[in-house]
């Protein structure tokens, strides 16, 4: 087995356990930060010189894994920095919640930090696992580790969100488990040494797989992991969980967790493609992609709660990813690139949303006005995030979306391309209305005194915004190569 991979999983896991054990609060934050930094360093190292694949490794970060691992680690580090400031801001004592004014208190901080770290461990495991069984275990683990995070603010709305999240995802993952079993059946013809669910064996013996079982397996995995990923119509848990959990948790879920689930589907797609059944999988991916975008559009238009709007936008972008992979060819590259852009941007948006929530004490769009005046740093960042998430140049998301569009034409699906554009335009219009209403105008509070925003609250999102911007102007070779290699694994070309 591969040492780095194991380290990547064990490091946060042990740190998490340690955090649970720790009696005092302050050191935990720094523990989390340190772990995140170490993790990021490890990931950076392995991206710099990718580890060579050893035969039947259960844990090995191939380029696809590395891509999502990189995203996860970066986002977690930023979130950890933000968390330090966030946890300082949080009031300990029971306090009235701003929607109904009922009293509520926080979870103990060690539970929060501990679960954060375990969450990271689980997600790392997802990205490095080369075994469909391990993959399943890991993804289920992410659900369990993140559930308490949603319930950090212990009032009944967050509880409701947690409950829905648990139930829907568990059911989905259960379906995925059946899919994994189906895969094992399909692979029973394949004589790979060791366990029959090792990805490399499945791909190597792709020709020998039983088609029917394989298709059934893919359907189940698509539905199962799709639930976790937030593809419509399985997305229903997403808006609730994202709107009720602390903003940095929302950022991690939207930016990292959904991608991990997507990775699960991609692994299945690799196997199906190896068996020469790619067309079957592609049309499903295209269909669910467009459906997700459409559903997102419906709920983004006239959305009254900005955190919910961000959640739906995640549904939309998951749809774009699935569409891109479904189209194939250069679109696959676009999808990989878009996954990166979306994670950075969405992280930025959720963190800034946290600042807005802290300043205005409401998640209602109607209640937020004049961010540019009231929050001199967060306001512009919020605007930048809007431009980035809607695929405006010079942000990276424009490049990735255009790549997908062009590939769609090149692959000869003009109608799909048009539908894609129309949905994007509708969503843009809906979002523009919401965002502009928030950033512009005079704040409700008179007289207007611009807030002093703490560095820890604005630096992390600013960093993300900068990265998203740079990716639109210059694609660093390291990133480009990783994307290329990942695309190659999925049979796409740049």
């Amino acid at each position, binding site marked *: 087995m591969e040492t780095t991979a194991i380290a990547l999983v064990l490091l946060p896991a042990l740190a998490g356990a340690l955090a649970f054990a720790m009696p005092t609060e302050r050191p935990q934050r720094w523990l989390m930060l340190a772990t995140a930094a170490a993790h990021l360093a490890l990931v950076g190292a392995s991206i710099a010189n990718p580890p060579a694949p050893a035969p039947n490794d259960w844990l090995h970060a191939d380029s696809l894994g590395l891509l999502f691992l990189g995203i996860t680690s970066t986002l977690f580090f930023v979130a950890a920095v933000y968390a330090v400031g966030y946890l300082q801001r949080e009031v300990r004592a029971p306090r009235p919640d*701003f*929607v*109904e*004014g009922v009293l509520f208190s926080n979870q103990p901080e060690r539970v929060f930090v501990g679960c954060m770290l375990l969450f990271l461990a689980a997600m790392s495991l997802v990205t490095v696992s080369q*075994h469909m*069984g*391990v993959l*399943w*275990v890991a993804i*289920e*683990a992410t*659900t*369990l580790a993140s*559930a*308490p995070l949603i*319930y950090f603010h*212990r*009032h*009944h*709305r967050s*509880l*409701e969100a*947690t*409950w*829905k999240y*648990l*139930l829907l995802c*568990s*059911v989905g993952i*259960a379906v995925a*488990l*059946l899919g994994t*079993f189906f895969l*094992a*059946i*399909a692979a*029973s013809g394949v004589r790979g040494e060791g*366990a*029959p*669910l090792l990805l490399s064996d499945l791909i190597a013996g792709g020709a020998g797989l*039983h088609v*029917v*079982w394989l298709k059934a397996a893919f359907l189940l995995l698509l539905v199962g992991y799709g639930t976790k990923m937030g593809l419509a119509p399985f997305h229903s848990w997403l*808006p*609730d969980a994202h*709107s*009720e959990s602390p903003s940095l948790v929302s950022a991690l879920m939207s930016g990292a967790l959904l991608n991990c689930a997507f990775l699960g589907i991609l692994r299945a797609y690799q196997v199906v493609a190896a068996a020469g059944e790619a067309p079957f999988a592609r049309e499903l991916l295209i269909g669910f992609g467009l459906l997700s975008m459409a559903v997102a559009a419906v*709920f983004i238009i006239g*959305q*009254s*709660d900005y955190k*919910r709007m961000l959640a739906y936008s995640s549904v939309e972008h998951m749809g774009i990813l699935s569409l891109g992979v479904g189209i194939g060819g250069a679109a696959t590259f676009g999808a990989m690139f878009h996954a990166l852009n979306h994670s950075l941007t969405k992280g930025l948006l959720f963190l800034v949303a946290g600042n807005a929530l802290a300043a*205005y*004490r*409401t998640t*209602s769009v*109607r*209640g937020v006005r004049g961010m540019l005046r009231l929050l001199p740093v967060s306001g512009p960042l919020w605007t930048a995030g809007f431009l980035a998430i809607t695929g405006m140049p010079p942000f990276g998301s424009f490049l990735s979306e255009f790549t997908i569009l062009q590939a769609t034409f090149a692959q000869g699906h003009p109608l799909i391309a048009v539908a894609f554009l129309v949905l994007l335009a509708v969503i843009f219009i809906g979002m523009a209305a919401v965002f502009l209403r928030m950033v512009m105008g005079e704040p*409700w*509070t008179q007289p207007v005194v611009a807030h002093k925003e703490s560095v820890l609250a604005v630096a992390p999102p600013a960093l993300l915004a900068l990265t998203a911007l740079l990716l639109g102007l210059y694609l660093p070779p390291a990133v480009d190569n990783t994307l290329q290699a990942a695309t190659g694994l999925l049979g796409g070309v740049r």
Partner: protein
Amino acid sequence: MSPVIDLLLILVLLLALAALASSKIARCVRIVAAQGIVLGVLFIVSRLGDVTLHLVAVAAAMIALKGLVIPWLLFRSMREAGVQREVEPYIGFQLSVVLGALAVGVAFVLSELLPLPEATSSQLVVPVSLATLFIGLLLLVSRKKAVTQVLGYIVLENGIFVFGLALARELPTLIEMGVLLDIFVGVFVMGITIYQINREFDHIDANKLQELNDMNRRRHRIPHVRDADR
């Protein structure tokens, strides 16, 4: 050995239907527990050919968890939550059973479409597992209370485990243990959540958990906004 296995499989299916039909939560829990135990036995019996240590271990773990721990957990949280004993379905029990039968039908049709590549212990494995799965989903969809939904989830899981038998070459221990662990923790967390729900709401009724939606704009208390401005 096949007839015994078939018998057990059918038993699993019947238990699932029974769970669908039972109107008292307590009974429902017991039925599900029984199903878990049967599953464990089935696990051993189906592999009588080569009883390995890990096989026994898994079976034991399964029986312990599904048959004892989880039911105990559920009873406890129910007691603490002071749940009324009725199941409170959206759709009546007769109809549920009818639908369950329908699900069984669908399961059998589907299993026709999915011929097992290698001769396994029994041909009933696939249909039974699918049917159990569907019944579990049916429970999840049609029962109001959170507890009953957890039960539905467990039934669904059991269905999937039945399918595990069909796997000619068993999964590595690590995986199966991991799976089991995940299931257990899942149910455990659900139990905790139910307990919390009880603290927040007057009684456990997933039906009440629908404040987060996009139907009617939720009323926000917006600081500093005069009603004239809204």
